[in-house]
């Protein structure tokens, strides 16, 4: 019998819920269980209501769940806000001071378990016992986290952890949530989406990143910085996003595979730079982690509302590609692919994610360091003829890109329209030739587009179309509906630009009903699909309340999907 337990730890920012959550997650992974972590937090440093949710058990999870088996409440507000989401037999673990008067409540006398500073550790021991994890495994995580910085605090932490563990063993009689033996190997990596992107960037050969901090993209850069010295990377916090993209372009011009990471508002400032990369034909990777807009919107929540913007941001016409990974493995793989595409076609390439994917963690099979293929910047100067022409007109539009200072050839790049040698011109025949040369690169990019992933039978009664991070919840919803006897298929796009209708038009046409599921209010991807393929998708399940999709949300909404007219 597969197990599926949803644990939600709630409290104020600064109460340590992330610490408990992470230590518990590590122990679960080491014990061989699957996990999926989702975090919900406010845009503030202390206070507010935050949650750290761990879905754990013996089968892989691809999305969060709405109902809760174990609610760990660090304050009374958590009880009030989430009591209604409790599953049958679900438990509320709370301090005796504010535990509700309910059969589901376990009132814990934390005061008796240890000093207040260590109540987190007591809670960890308590939950660990309830789940059936060994105390030593729980403490190993505490040791690894605290050991170096505060070795003096280890003894007291062990004592309090054991008190919590013992209290649960002797006082909690409801034992519905003891996990059976773990099935997965203990050799896995525990990552969130932004860490997977950073690892993909390092594997893909990134040597330079400039950024201005912006939630939910910042942890991409934090992860790069953590490994910068070891991996030989330069990471610079720029004065603003305009500087960040221009620095990345300057660094890429001079030979460092380069990237930036930002979110909607920061991307808005970068758009002139995106156009510059298109015109100067400089490879650059932009990671855009979406959050709900307009303007500052909901800074710490999730949405897929910037597809149109990322597709069109940047004036003028030039080729680009947009990847939208659906899971952690794709974050790692597609970041490398995006870097290679940018270098090959000398143009800006995007990785479009969102807060849900950025912050959501899972344990996954380890990446193979022997399988990486880092990009090599620039062409070999030995084969270039003098005088070197940076923008030589070629059949496929790609001009061999030399790096400045590496040979005696002079490399001239210009944001103005330019001759083949890079110098400024306004001559019309040259203008026409250069526009066409840049756009010819798009033909090559189209030949390399990742086909959308189709699961299920082609003649399904219901085809669920999605892109990016919505993949997991859609797959889960489809699986549930299939168990109910429905013929359901899914089609997930991990590359949303360019779109190649031949790859998917038959699949769209052969299903009885097609519903597009995406995290925005206007059905941006559905409209893009129609524009590119002519196939209309009037049936949509949309979400724009700042929360990630869940399988249950999708199923509930599918029951009441009206056909929608064209959006504004």
């Amino acid at each position, binding site marked *: 019998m597969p197990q599926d337990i949803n644990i939600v730890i709630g409290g104020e920012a600064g109460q340590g819920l992330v610490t408990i959550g992470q230590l518990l997650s590590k122990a679960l992974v080491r014990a061989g269980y699957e996990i999926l972590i989702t975090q919900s937090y406010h845009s503030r440093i202390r206070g507010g209501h935050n949650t750290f949710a761990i879905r754990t058990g013996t089968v892989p999870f691809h999305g969060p769940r709405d109902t809760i088996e174990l609610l760990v409440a660090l304050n009374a507000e958590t009880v009030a806000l989430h009591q209604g989401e409790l599953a049958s037999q679900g438990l509320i673990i709370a301090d005796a001071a504010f535990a509700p008067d309910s059969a589901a409540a376990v009132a814990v006398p934390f005061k008796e378990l240890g000093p207040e500073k260590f109540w987190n550790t007591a809670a960890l021991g308590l939950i660990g016992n309830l789940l059936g994890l060994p105390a030593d495994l729980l403490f190993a995580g505490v040791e690894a986290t605290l050991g170096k910085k505060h070795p003096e605090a280890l003894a007291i932490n062990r004592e309090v952890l054991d008190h919590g563990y013992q209290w649960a063993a002797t006082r909690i009689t409801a034992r519905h949530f003891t996990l059976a033996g773990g099935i997965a190997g203990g050799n*896995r*990596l*525990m*990552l969130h989406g932004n860490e997977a992107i950073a*690892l993909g960037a*390092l*594997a893909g*050969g990134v*040597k*330079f990143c*400039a950024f201005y901090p912006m939630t939910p993209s910042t942890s991409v850069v934090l992860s790069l910085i*953590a490994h*910068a*010295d*070891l*991996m*030989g*990377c*330069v990471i*610079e916090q*720029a*004065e*603003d996003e*305009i*500087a*960040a993209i*221009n*620095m*990345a*372009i*300057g*660094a*890429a*011009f*001079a*030979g*460092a595979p*380069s990237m930036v990471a930002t979110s909607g508002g920061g991307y808005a400032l970068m758009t*002139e*730079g995106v156009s*510059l990369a298109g015109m*100067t034909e400089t490879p650059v990777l932009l990671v855009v982690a979406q959050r709900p807009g307009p303007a500052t919107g909901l800074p710490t929540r999730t949405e897929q509302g910037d597809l149109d913007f990322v597709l069109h941001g940047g004036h003028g016409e030039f080729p680009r590609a947009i990847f939208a990974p659906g899971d952690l493995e794709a974050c790692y793989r597609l970041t490398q692919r995006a870097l290679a595409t940018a270098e090959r076609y000398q143009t800006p390439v995007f990785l479009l994610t969102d807060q849900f994917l950025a912050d959501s963690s899972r344990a996954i099979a*380890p*990446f193979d*360091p*022997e399988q*990486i293929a*880092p990009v090599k910047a*620039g062409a070999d100067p030995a084969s270039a003829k003098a005088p070197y022409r940076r923008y030589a007109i070629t059949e496929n539009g790609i001009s061999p890109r030399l*790096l*400045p*200072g590496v040979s*005696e050839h*002079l*490399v*001239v*790049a*210009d*944001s103005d329209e330019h001759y083949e040698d890079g110098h*400024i011109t306004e001559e019309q025949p040259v203008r026409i030739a250069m526009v066409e040369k840049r756009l010819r690169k798009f033909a090559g990019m189209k030949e390399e587009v990742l086909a959308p992933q189709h699961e299920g039978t082609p003649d399904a009664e219901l085809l669920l179309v999605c892109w990016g991070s919505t993949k997991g919840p859609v797959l889960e919803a489809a699986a549930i509906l299939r168990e109910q006897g429905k013929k359901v298929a899914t089609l997930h796009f991990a590359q949303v630009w360019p779109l190649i209708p031949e790859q998917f038009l038959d699949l769209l046409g052969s299903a009885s009903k097609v519903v597009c599921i995406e995290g925005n209010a206007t059905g941006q991807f559905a409209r893009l699909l129609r524009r590119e393929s002519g196939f209309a998708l009037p049936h949509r399940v949309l979400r724009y309340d700042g929360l990630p999709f869940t399988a249950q949300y999708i199923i509930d909404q599918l029951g009441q999907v009206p056909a929608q007219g064209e959006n504004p």
Partner: protein
Amino acid sequence: MTTIEQYGKFDTAWCPGCGNFGILNALKQALVACDLAPHQVLLVSGIGQAAKTPHYLNANVFNGLHGRGLPAATGAKLANSELTVIAESGDGCMYGEGGNHFLAALRRNLDITILVHDNQVYGLTKGQASPTSDQGFVTKTQPHGAPSAAFNPVAVAVAMGTSFVARGFAGIPDQLADLIAQAIRHRGTALVDILQPCVSFNPVNTFKWYKDRCYELPAEYDPTDRDVARRTAAEFGERIPLGVLYRHDKPLFEEHFDALKQGPLHRQEVSRTAFRQVLEQYR
């Protein structure tokens, strides 16, 4: 030995009598004086008549966006610190559109040179006030006179402890060439603010106007004395000092990055052994 012929001769899009011609010649002379071959040099500019300068001599060139020359120069220098990187643009580009980048660049102290063609007016957009226009300067867009106070770039640079701060004048080419050469040789961020007339759009700050006011700092002037430099840099009006206003050594920005100890980034392979160690941290 590098010769001035290696830097070539090009047709320009400048007005006859423009101060840019003197600045271009001074730049070439300075590069020759520093014995730099064209392929060792990267000129990075923004947009404007001054920002076209890199197109008129042989060198590597990155002619980017208006106001954004300095970030591109910063990225390029960090990627390849063996390049001699010179950011060159006008007063509107460097001090107006790119003002935030100007301040940030002075704080960083990369080993780059910043040349600013300062004619106190916007030329390419046909005569609006620039950040360095005198307050009250009348234009078609500021018919009642420029309402804002003028930005004094050298005073700001000295106040920020910039490693090398100089002012030159396009009308004294030999001194200007020497100042640019000193700036290139200086280890650290070196600013040369270069006064020049705009023959088309600035009828006030003419060649004669500058000639009557500019004076060269005397031989006994000590550019390492910051208090003196502060007072001297603030002087702009009836008398305008030319020369190296302030100079001191401070740690290079590049030294903060471990990766740069191994040379240019394009030469550094990605180590699979190192990447394996990185992955271990996520177990």
